């Protein structure tokens, strides 16, 4: 996710630098009136969620600490599961343990890919640039560390997501934090607390879906399109509503009209864009292989000395931690919704697969961005955000900003589709299922696309961004209370593997056996 611009004092300045059009394009009185109405409420909520304590001259949002501490606790509790079972996770994704009779059901790979398409986005491109431009190359080290620990949080929440999912008589499967919070805590003898946390989670999830998962995406995608089509002189400048309307019609035709082909095309292009992005990054890194040693030394030295960074080591650490937490959503609970549809008898297998998600998102893609920026030498150019990433890639491929703009729009679109689903699940959890109720949410969701693209609703976006992180409060409390359940699942799973009840499906052997 990509919510890095919504933070206290310094954020306003950065927002203005990265996205000058936010401030410029819309000064309409309607915008202002909406801003003035919601600002008092949104400021209180955003202020509470992003409550920051000053550490060595840096503002450290407590919610980031909440997520990093949780990740550290799960890492220790599960004995560094992200390293010990990494190979097993790969084997599961490859389908080594998938029974041939389950062909046609949701595979581990599919659940992982769908969850990833909701996480990989603007944060990996723009957010990292903000982190290294403020925290220096050293921020990369702390980002990787936090990403590695976040793998344990994902493991925990996605195992629970599958264990406590609902399987309906008609064959549909639905899961996520609202189900494990209510059902799991009821098993622990705390039904009241479970229900309360589930409702709190659902409310925050709806807020996060229309905010960070929608309006923020629409807004940033529009800014990027304006930037590459000529900035202030762009034919689109000031026509955010038009861009938003087009986006909303496309999103609506997929989520309301059920037009699968559009979603299918995006789903084909998005992984492709991710591959292009990573390949371009690799090419730049390899062609500058001589500078990689220097870049890594900058990263390590920066991480422990904080040379040249405001706030020194702590400044670099805070930037890195923030970026990782905001990017991979470990501990937020959103991914558990996507992962829970997988076909498996063992919930813990999806937990293992899910731990690859922060690895790919943070340790691979974010690190790639950071390395390219460090190597390109654009770090001291005074740029930040998408512009910095864009400039870093442009130093090798002049045409890259165009590809990047396309990637940003597509990532925004796929993130919107994912979050429309997460929001819908939370909505139906609260109000019950039903065509009419679902349509209401979907229409509201589309409306928010237009609002997000056409207005500079800082306070509204602040509010909804804070809602995404608010999801982590009920979710992580639930994870602490339920982590013993996950350990039970782990133990019985490995007992079965040792007894040989679960083993790799050797496809060639089954064919050979009969000859």
């Amino acid at each position, binding site marked *: 996710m990509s919510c890095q611009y919504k933070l206290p004092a310094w954020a306003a300045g950065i927002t203005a630098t990265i996205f000058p059009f936010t401030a410029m394009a819309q000064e309409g009185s309607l915008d202002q009136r909406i801003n003035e109405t919601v600002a008092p409420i949104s400021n209180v909520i955003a202020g509470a969620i992003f409550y920051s304590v000053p550490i060595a001259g840096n503002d450290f949002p407590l919610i980031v600490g909440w997520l990093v501490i949780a990740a550290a606790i799960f890492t220790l509790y599960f004995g560094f599961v992200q390293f010990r079972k990494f190979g097993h996770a790969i084997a599961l994704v490859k389908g080594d343990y998938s029974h041939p009779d389950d*062909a046609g059901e949701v*595979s581990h790979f599919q659940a992982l*890919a*769908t969850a990833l398409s909701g996480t990989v986005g603007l944060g990996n491109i723009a957010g990292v640039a903000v982190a290294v431009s403020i925290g220096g190359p050293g921020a990369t080290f702390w980002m990787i560390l936090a990403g590695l620990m976040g793998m344990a949080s994902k493991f925990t929440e996605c195992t629970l997501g599958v264990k406590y999912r609902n399987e309906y008589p008609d064959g*549909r499967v639905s899961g996520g934090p609202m189900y494990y919070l209510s059902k799991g805590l009821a098993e622990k003898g705390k039904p009241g607390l479970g229900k309360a946390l589930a409702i709190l989670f659902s409310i925050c999830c709806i807020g996060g879906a229309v905010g960070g998962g929608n309006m923020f995406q629409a807004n940033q995608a529009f800014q990027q399109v304006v930037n590459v089509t000529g900035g202030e002189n762009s034919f689109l400048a000031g026509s955010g509503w038009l861009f938003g309307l087009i986006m909303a019609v496309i999103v609506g035709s997929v989520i309301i009209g059920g037009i699968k082909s559009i979603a299918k095309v995006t789903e084909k292009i998005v992984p492709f864009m991710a591959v292009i992005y990573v390949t371009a990054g690799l090419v730049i890194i390899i062609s500058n292989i001589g500078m990689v040693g220097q870049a890594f030394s900058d990263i390590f030295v920066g991480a422990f000395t904080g040379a040249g960074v405001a706030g020194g080591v702590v400044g670099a650490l805070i930037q890195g931690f923030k970026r990782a937490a905001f990017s991979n959503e470990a501990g937020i609970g959103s991914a558990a919704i996507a992962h829970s549809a997988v076909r498996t008898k063992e919930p813990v297998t999806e937990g293992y697969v899910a731990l690859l998600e922060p690895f790919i998102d943070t340790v691979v893609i974010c690190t790639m961005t950071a390395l390219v920026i460090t190597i390109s030498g654009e770090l001291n150019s005074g740029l930040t955000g998408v512009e910095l990433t864009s400039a870093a890639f442009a130093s090798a491929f002049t045409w890259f900003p165009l590809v990047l703009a396309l990637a940003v729009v597509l990532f925004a679109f796929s993130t919107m*589709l994912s979050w429309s*689903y997460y929001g819908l699940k939370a909505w139906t959890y609260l109000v019950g299922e039903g065509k009419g109720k679902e349509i209401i949410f979907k229409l509201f969701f589309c409306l928010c696309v237009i609002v997000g693209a056409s207005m500079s609703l800082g306070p509204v976006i602040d509010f909804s961004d804070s809602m995404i992180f608010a999801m982590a409060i009920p979710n992580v409390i639930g994870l602490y209370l339920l982590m013993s359940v996950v350990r039970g699942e782990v133990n019985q799973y490995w007992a079965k593997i040792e007894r040989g009840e679960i083993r790799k499906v050797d496809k060639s052997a089954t*064919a050979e056996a009969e000859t």
Partner: protein
Amino acid sequence: MSQTPSVKPILIGYDGTEAADRAVQFTANRAAAEGCPVHVIYVLEWSPYSFLSAQELEERHQRRTEELSRAEATLAPALRVFIDRKIPMTYEVRYGHSGELICQIAKEKKATQIVLGRKGGTALGARLLGSLALTLVQASPVPVTVVP
């Protein structure tokens, strides 16, 4: 879904098209002449590495159940041909890559040959889109008969 018969079967790939129905007739004649059983395969093209939206993930199990029952319905008339002619017959509906799956089943069942209906596409179309018949001719462990 079926037992391996004692006598080696003829394998037929069926997909409900007219060409597949002609292949059924051909196979029935061959099986009757040779006195061997028939094994019918219906493949639902599927990759575990394809990309689905969250909504599709939720509904996947339901859809799969529907697809399987639709496949059974499509298969029924073909199966009736063999039943009517009292030819011993087994069948299966499988998800996967049709070329790989048919070759694999041919090995498992120790089939004497594979029979397929020809889609009747143009040569260019087959080159561009790939053709099951061409794939099998190149990869099959047993002889392949393509019925026009």
